[in-house]
């Protein structure tokens, strides 16, 4: 299978979260993911994009979000970036139930980590945050990388 990608940029408006889920689910469907895996990917992307909107650009400050999807060698890579507030303590941020917002559950990063095969969080306070996530279809695992 050929390498494929979608690079998407959009403003941090809540109504764009559902569209980012639609895009990632349609793109990921080019691999042999189960419906359950596609659902997990949708949740992970929803959390990542929501975090950009709530935490990266707080108080409805409008900024740009970049969503980069790649399929290479049967593996889906997702990169979500904002150019906003950033995170000072990455380990603290990843702690289950930790949130800087009392109204929120602190489960976004936990969901991303448990629903994707890999999740890497990078951030520089004042510059922005970058989440890299990777997932390979369960059905393709153990059969070597490329199925074509």
């Amino acid at each position: 299978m050929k390498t494929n990608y979608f690079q998407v940029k959009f403003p941090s408006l809540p109504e764009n979260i559902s569209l980012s889920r639609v895009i990632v689910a349609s793109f990921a469907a080019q691999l042999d993911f189960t419906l359950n895996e596609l659902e997990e990917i949708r949740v992970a992307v929803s959390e990542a994009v929501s975090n950009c909107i709530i935490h990266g650009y707080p108080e409805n400050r409008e900024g740009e979000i970049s969503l980069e999807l790649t399929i290479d060698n049967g593996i889906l890579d997702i990169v979500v970036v904002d150019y906003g507030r950033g995170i000072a303590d990455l380990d603290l941020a990843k702690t289950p139930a930790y949130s800087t917002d009392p109204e929120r559950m602190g489960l976004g990063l936990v969901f991303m980590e448990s629903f994707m095969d890999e999740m890497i969080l990078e951030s520089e306070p004042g510059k922005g945050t970058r989440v890299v996530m990777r997932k390979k279809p369960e059905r393709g695992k153990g059969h070597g990388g490329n199925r074509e």
Partner: protein
Amino acid sequence: MTIDLTRAGCILVVKVQGELDLSTSPVFRDKIETELARDENIRHLVLDLKDVSFIDSSGLGAVLGRFKSISQRGGKLVGVEVPLHLEKLFALSGLLKIMIICPTVEDALNTL
């Protein structure tokens, strides 16, 4: 997302359709809170989740918030017709420990 509210005695039944995320949760919250504020006789909350096609931690947080409101009145939160993908996230988030799950609205009304 659409929200339908109906009353059965002291129980408020809320039917939710569509996606429950950061963009739609405020509507979910406001519709229910407005109704709770309007009518002190409401005691329990039943959420019919059959047609919820998506939920994430923002949506789960909105459900938890309603649990808090209804607990303050000494009432219970019941989820009915919960799709499998939602139940999984309810379990992961700990919501299953605080809310009651029933198969149907009728079961919920009989249980409460």
